[in-house]
């Protein structure tokens, strides 16, 4: 059959179903195929908190949101054009974000009495039957049944046949957006290499879905979304935690030093451990410690020995590391602490995203204990920020905290691959060459106030360091009052001087004459950017600054902020960066805050800005 084709510029599609339905896989496949095709994309996987929440229930719903288009895609999208639901709970959870007149593809079997009951929907209110969806384009398909029929020839068990239904859906959506199945067929063949029957069944289901679209008349249109214009180069899709791991690896290779990750599993940081533990061949040590304290301490031990000590965690685990981070600050050893923020306080919302650990990063240690704080702004940006974190830690002999979050960590986007040669060189401060006599001064400083670190095993560099206040230059214990003040200031100044090497801050949009400035940091880059873009297209004049370096702040930031009467700070917390901005620049900045474990919607930011602009 030949459907009409409709050209679209961008589409938001949400796959949702039970966490056993293979939704993440479906989403990822569609994302990769779409990226390969040449669209720009942004994705947002949304897992249930439980490992295997009860099948069919609302808490058990797993979702994968994908936004793709022929232009720059900032965010996974506020609302969906298409909602694919495998069961009633998935519809219930997601309907509120479907655009008016949006497309619903619903699996009829997922709305049987059992599934309705599990979703807490009275039988008589079955949404597929009671006309409540009349504002949408609903496609009811018995995906389960069709899949089973399609794969009948393979004589799989009931469960195994049913498991292919996500491939049926994927095939159907491929058809709908005019995509090829090659990539996924390859993937299936690879994945089930040892189980050819399963492989064939899945491929059959995939094709059946595709053909179903092609043959039946359910769909009026097929859609096309043209390629996006991108920088030339090689691309891949990458999520934040992968990018982070790759960035660390790249830094270790360019610094020519082993990488040592001391860590303890915690959601959503564990994937960095998982990824790095696969790459031992690059001189990577991954040490799964007994707790977070041991993880960071072992990393300090590794740094002390001349490796690159890093540690990863999330909120509660970071809290436990704060004492040891103080030690690293006093020892002035390189250390990278990577915090994949999640909803807090306490155990909080472990699988949700939030930016509420900024103040902890800046101030959450005893005593005057400054460190460098940086925050990647997108999934792929983690690569370079992880790299720069190690570079700063090594070259400035200072702990560096990276603030990522659940959204950045798990979401993916196309990434213009930067090979290792495209990254700046790294030169550590480690002394590893024997000397003839020992006149080493462990706390003598270089131009950037970093110290030279003589590594154990280096002849004639024997010396002792520790957590008590050090005498300037010699590093001996000192209780001298003025020395203490000097050292506190030197450690602070050393961090300040990192500002010398970070890029000057620029406006993402607008300029010093714009009528309002919005400042963000870290993972909100996409949402704020999209909002500002839309506003400026709509005739407003809004300037945007996005901070990736938070301590120290870029040297020119004050000058950029000064001209503005209206300054807003958008954050996924109850107002943290804003405190810094107000304190430093005495601007009566207004916060845009969301504390819902979810990224900003573009419209939320737009509304806040418009409100503030209108409130004279």
């Amino acid at each position, binding site marked *: 059959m030949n459907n009409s084709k409709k050209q679209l510029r961008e589409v938001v599609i949400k796959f949702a179903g039970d966490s056993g339905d293979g939704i993440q896989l479906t989403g990822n496949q569609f994302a990769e195929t779409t990226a390969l095709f040449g669209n720009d994309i942004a994705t947002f996987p949304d897992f249930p908190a439980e490992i295997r929440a009860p099948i069919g229930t609302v808490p058990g719903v797993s979702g994968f949101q994908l936004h793709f288009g022929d232009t720059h895609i900032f965010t996974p999208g506020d609302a969906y054009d298409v909602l694919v639901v495998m069961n009633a709970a998935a519809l219930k959870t997601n309907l509120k974000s479907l655009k008016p007149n949006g497309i619903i593809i619903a699996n009829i079997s997922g709305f049987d009495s059992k599934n309705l009951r599990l979703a807490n929907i009275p039988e008589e209110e079955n949404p597929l039957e009671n006309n409540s969806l009349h504002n949408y384009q609903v496609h009811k398909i018995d995906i389960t049944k069709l899949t089973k029929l399609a794969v009948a020839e393979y004589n799989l068990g009931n469960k195994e046949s049913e498991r292919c239904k996500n491939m049926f859906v994927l095939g159907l959506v491929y058809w709908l957006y005019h995509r090829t199945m090659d990539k996924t067929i390859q993937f299936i063949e690879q994945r089930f290499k040892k189980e050819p029957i399963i492989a064939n069944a899945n491929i059959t289901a995939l094709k059946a879905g595709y053909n179903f679209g092609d043959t039946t008349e359910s769909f009026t249109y097929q859609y096309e979304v043209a390629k996006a214009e991108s920088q030339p180069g090689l*691309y891949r899709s990458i999520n934040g935690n992968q990018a982070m791991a790759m960035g660390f*690896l*790249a830094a270790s290779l360019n610094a020519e030093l082993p990488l040592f990750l001391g860590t303890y599993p915690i959601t959503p940081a564990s994937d960095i451990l998982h990824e790095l533990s696969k790459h031992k061949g690059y001189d*990577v*040590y991954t040490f799964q410690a007994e707790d977070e*304290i041991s993880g960071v*301490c072992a990393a*300090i031990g590794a740094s002390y020995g001349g490796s690159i000590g890093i540690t990863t965690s999330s909120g509660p685990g970071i809290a436990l590391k704060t004492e040891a981070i103080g030690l690293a600050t006093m020892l002035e050893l390189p250390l990278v602490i990577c915090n994949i923020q999640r909803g807090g306080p306490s155990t909080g919302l472990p699988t949700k995203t939030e930016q509420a650990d900024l103040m902890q990063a800046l101030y959450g240690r005893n005593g005057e204990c400054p460190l460098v704080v940086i925050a990647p702004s997108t999934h792929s940006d983690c690569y370079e920020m992880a790299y720069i974190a190690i570079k700063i830690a090594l070259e400035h002999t200072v702990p560096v905290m990276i603030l990522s979050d659940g959204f950045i960590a798990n979401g993916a986007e196309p990434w213009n691959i930067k090979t290792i040669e495209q990254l700046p060189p790294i030169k550590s401060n480690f002394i590893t060459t024997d000397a003839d006599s020992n006149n080493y001064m462990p706390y003598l400083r270089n131009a950037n106030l970093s110290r030279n670190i003589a590594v154990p095993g280096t002849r004639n560099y024997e010396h002792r360091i520790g957590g008590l206040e050090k005498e300037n230059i010699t590093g001996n214990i000192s209780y001298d009052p003025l020395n203490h003040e000097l050292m506190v200031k030197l450690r602070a100044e050393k961090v300040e001087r990192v500002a010398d090497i970070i890029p000057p801050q620029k406006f993402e949009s607008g300029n010093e004459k714009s009528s309002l400035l919005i400042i963000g940091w870290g993972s909100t880059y996409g949402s704020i950017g999209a909002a500002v873009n839309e506003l400026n297209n709509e005739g407003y004049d809004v300037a945007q600054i996005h901070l990736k370096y938070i301590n120290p702040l870029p040297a020119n930031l004050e000058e950029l902020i000064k001209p503005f009467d209206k300054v807003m700070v958008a954050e996924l917390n109850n107002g943290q960066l804003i405190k810094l901005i107000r304190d430093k620049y005495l601007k009566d900045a207004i916060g845009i805050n969301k504390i819902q474990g979810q990224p900003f919607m573009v419209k939320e930011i737009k509304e806040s800005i418009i409100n503030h602009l209108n409130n004279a």
Partner: protein
Amino acid sequence: MHNPESIDIFTPKDLETDQEVRWCPGCGDYAILNSVKKILPDLGQPKHEFVFISGIGCSSRFPYYMNTFGMHSIHGRATAVATGLKVTRPELSVWVITGDGDALSIGGNHLIHTLRRNPDLNILLFNNQIYGLTKGQYSPTSEVGKVTKSSPVGSVESPFNPLSLCLGANSTFIARTIDKDAKHQQEIYKRAYAHKGTSMVEIYQNCNVFNDHAFDIFTDKEIKLLNGIYLEHQKPLIYDGGKKGIRLNGLQPEVIDLEEYSQADCMVHDETDKTKAFILTQFFENHLLPRPFGVLYCDNSKPTLEGGMNNQIERANIVDKKLAFNSLLMTNAYWEVK
């Protein structure tokens, strides 16, 4: 990496630092420091390959007084720091200096995990059965009823039996020695160094300020023979100058009089027998039995942590890492925009 060149020869005197030793006069820590200084030159490893990592406590000041590499870390975490160092730098000789509070109170978890993982560290636990640095509170090795600053009417907490705890945590080497016996210490420290795996040495150390006389029964001329027994591998358990021995009655150790019984009746020490080691660790609450000094247990068969980790790294080794890395970046589906 042992370098036998003459420049690597050093003496105990070379191990002195320019820092004044600041323990209380009479503290048992001095004797331990001296014994360690004494043996290092004999181990055949150059001075710059020794690292002493400590936590916090009086005892943990040790690294400042030892002219090797050293780190005075934070309370309870020395084992963790040392583990990170040792796995990445297996050629170094890494020693952990810790106290009963540092190792067994706040640092208990890192200690037991270190023992089960078995990196080749030498742990010297200065057990003075008190918190010295914080001026005298009871510790996890203080006896029930002990009156201290924090237990004015006596502590109600039952203490650890440190070597029993370590054995329970799968330690591959446990030994006990005492500050006042320099020769025995030195022998034990050499054994600890020789053991490949984590060596746990409990050292009875007198804190003459906050817990004086704690170990007098093992050092006072008149009674020490009755209260301590010195273990030797494959030798019968004999003490009190040969007058007494220990035999096993079934599983129960008992004291026998060697005028009545013969040496052949005595339990024979076997460092490699874990059950015997367990029985020896239990010479503790029972005050009729002498306290064992020496190596209670030594198992050389268990692989070290750094061995395991570095093996995996070597086996996976990639020759041209940068090249491989670039292709790694491209292993996931990628596409080109021109």
